């Protein structure tokens, strides 16, 4: 990635972090000073050539980017579309998330802070944060819902190996949203020396923009790779959306390309009609959660409703405000993908390309499969679809094995 490509572009959000009516800061006053400090640190860092150069070097030498753009020919033949996979699954720690944690760890050091805290659902962001904390010699505390610590014991062990303290959260529904609440509480109490290394492009300003800036390399790289390999831009870009960092990361470079359609695929769980899903945009409503105004899953009284998805990384009842804004403005389209559709795509990629994807990314693959025939009809030719393969499926082997009933001695 070129250093210049890291500079923030566009007029959104405004100075107070609003994307239209979305975003902003809905936080205790005690955190405002820290958010202001972070906003300023982010602004000056992005304008600082040495910061950008150091970030670029880390991404190249440590994280292994630019990640490959792979033309998946056998999958393409099955889908009736030319599918290009952005291989973020090949990054160090196995997902796009390494970009965000390295950027924020650099920023933590720049602010003179020595401790990072993070929330994690399945443990992927926790592992990534623990990794960056080890590399930067930062104290690291990860909040994880008690339910998740039991479901994801291996990731808990990984974080501990990397030197992090894992705190099981026993309040509320004991899952990701409660881990986020607990991280916020820690931050309010320890804000002087602590940076809250948030795991997605959500939360109060400046987090959505800051995280977007650190992951936007995905799209910047893919756009150039696409031009180099095919001589044209893709017809569509597909990504899964939980909080939304991988999707924003790949969308951002294409927002100014009007002919490139942007598709975000939300976790439809058992189906929107069942109420058991994690589709905040397509199945939620406007509200305030975790510091920002955005789409959330809530009941008639504004209480957060628990989300459901086979993919732990998408199992969150909110979404980053920039996605809500891209939805409101119509620049990007958001559609739900059910657990079953995602798992069918998971299996298809395993069998056609020899790649085991994360279940999160499988939602993007399933979505691409769903839009391929419509795009072909619309364009009158085979469409080119760029899919963000945001993570690898090692962490999902147990879940997928159970889903397909292939664990144990006999098949």
């Amino acid at each position, binding site marked *: 990635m070129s250093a210049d490509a890291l500079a923030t572009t566009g007029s959104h959000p405004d100075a*107070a972090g609003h994307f239209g009516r979305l975003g*902003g*800061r*809905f*936080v*205790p*006053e*005690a*955190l*405002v*000073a*820290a958010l202001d400090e972070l906003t300023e640190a982010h602004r000056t860092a992005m304008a600082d050539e040495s910061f950008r150069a150091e970030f670029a070097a880390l991404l190249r030498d440590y994280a292994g980017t630019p990640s490959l753009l792979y033309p998946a020919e056998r999958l393409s033949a099955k889908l009736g579309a030319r599918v290009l996979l952005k291989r973020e699954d090949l990054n160090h720690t196995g997902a796009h998330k390494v970009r965000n944690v390295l950027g924020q760890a650099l920023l933590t050091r720049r602010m003179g802070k020595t401790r990072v805290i993070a929330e994690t659902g399945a443990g992927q962001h926790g592992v990534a944060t623990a990794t960056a904390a080890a590399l930067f010699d930062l104290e690291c505390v990860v909040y994880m819902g008690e339910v998740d610590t039991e479901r994801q014991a291996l990731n808990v062990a990984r974080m501990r190996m990397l030197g992090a303290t894992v705190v099981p959260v026993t*309040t*509320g529904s004991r899952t990701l*949203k*409660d881990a986020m*609440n607990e991280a*916020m*509480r820690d931050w*309010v*109490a*320890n*804000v*002087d020396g602590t940076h809250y290394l948030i795991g997605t492009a959500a939360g109060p300003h400046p987090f959505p923009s800051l995280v977007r800036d650190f992951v936007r390399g995905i799209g910047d790289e893919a756009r150039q790779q696409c031009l180099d390999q095919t001589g044209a831009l893709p017809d569509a870009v597909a990504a899964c959306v939980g909080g939304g960092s991988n999707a924003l990361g790949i969308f951002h470079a294409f927002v100014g390309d009007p002919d490139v359609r942007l598709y975000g695929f939300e976790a439809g769980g058992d189906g929107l009609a069942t109420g058991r899903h994690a589709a905040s945009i397509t199945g939620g409503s*406007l*509200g*305030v*959660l*975790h*510091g920002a105004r955005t789409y*959330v899953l*809530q009941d*008639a*009284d*504004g*209480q*957060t409703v628990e989300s459901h998805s086979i993919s732990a990384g998408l199992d969150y009842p909110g979404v980053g405000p920039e996605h809500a804004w891209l939805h409101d403005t119509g620049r990007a389209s958001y559609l739900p993908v059910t657990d079953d559709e995602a798992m069918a795509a998971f299996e298809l990629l395993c069998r056609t390309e020899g790649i085991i994807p994360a279940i999160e990314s499988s939602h993007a693959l399933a979505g691409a499969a769903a839009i391929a025939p419509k795009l072909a009809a619309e364009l009158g030719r085979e469409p080119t679809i760029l899919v963000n393969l945001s993570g690898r499926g090692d962490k999902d082997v147990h879940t997928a094995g159970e889903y397909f009933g292939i664990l144990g001695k006999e098949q």
Partner: protein
Amino acid sequence: MSRIGIAFEKARAEGRALLVGCMPAGFPTVEGSIAAMTAMVEAGVDVIEVEIPYSDPVMDGPVIQKASDIALAGGVRTADTLRIIEAVAATGAPVVTMTYWNPIERYGVDAFARDLDAAGGTGLITPDLIPEEADEWLAASDAYGLDRTFLVAPSSTDARLAMTVEHCRGFVYATAIMGVTGARAQTSDAAPVLVSRVREVTEIPVGVGLGVGTGAQAGTVGGYADGVIVGSALIRCLLDTPDLDAGLAALRTLSAELAEGVRNPVR
């Protein structure tokens, strides 16, 4: 004129701080919370702060979280909260409401202000709403003459502090410590500094919350603040006892101790 201002003036004339006692609506039940708040008033609590239970209370420590969870599990709705406010306001004590912002947005800001006014509430304490995001609430509170209590913190800059108190009506809430709600062994050193910073820019009464749980602490905080806000310690009276009657008895005892505390300010 602020609705709660009269109560502050009366306490000031008596040379003491106002005692504000907080309880989540619907904890342990709707009727139980009305009984608890009524008992608090009878035992000497001047102002009742009714907290609307919320699924994601980031400013609250474990005690209020647990009480909120119990209230929500019991099925309490925003409409129940308004009914509770009306019942407690009938005791004659001012009733202020503390709420995270999403339940109010969901209800409709103007509609909530209208119904809060009708129920006899004095206004809102908004722990996750800063004045910059509060346009709708500023308009609705003006329309219905409701008080607005925003928070200031030890980390607030002078400019933010001045801007925040300018938007307050009734009283301003000074968070004594950098942290969440919950009684602590020692009251904060940062609180008196924060209160004097507020006094430099405004005459509006200052309530201090976070960490007060005993009569002695209430006396200490009452020595420099206009209002002493107590939540977790009172709520624990109901959490730690086997039944509501025992809880109400414990609540009366602690309320009386705190009321005694604010009448013996340490200056």
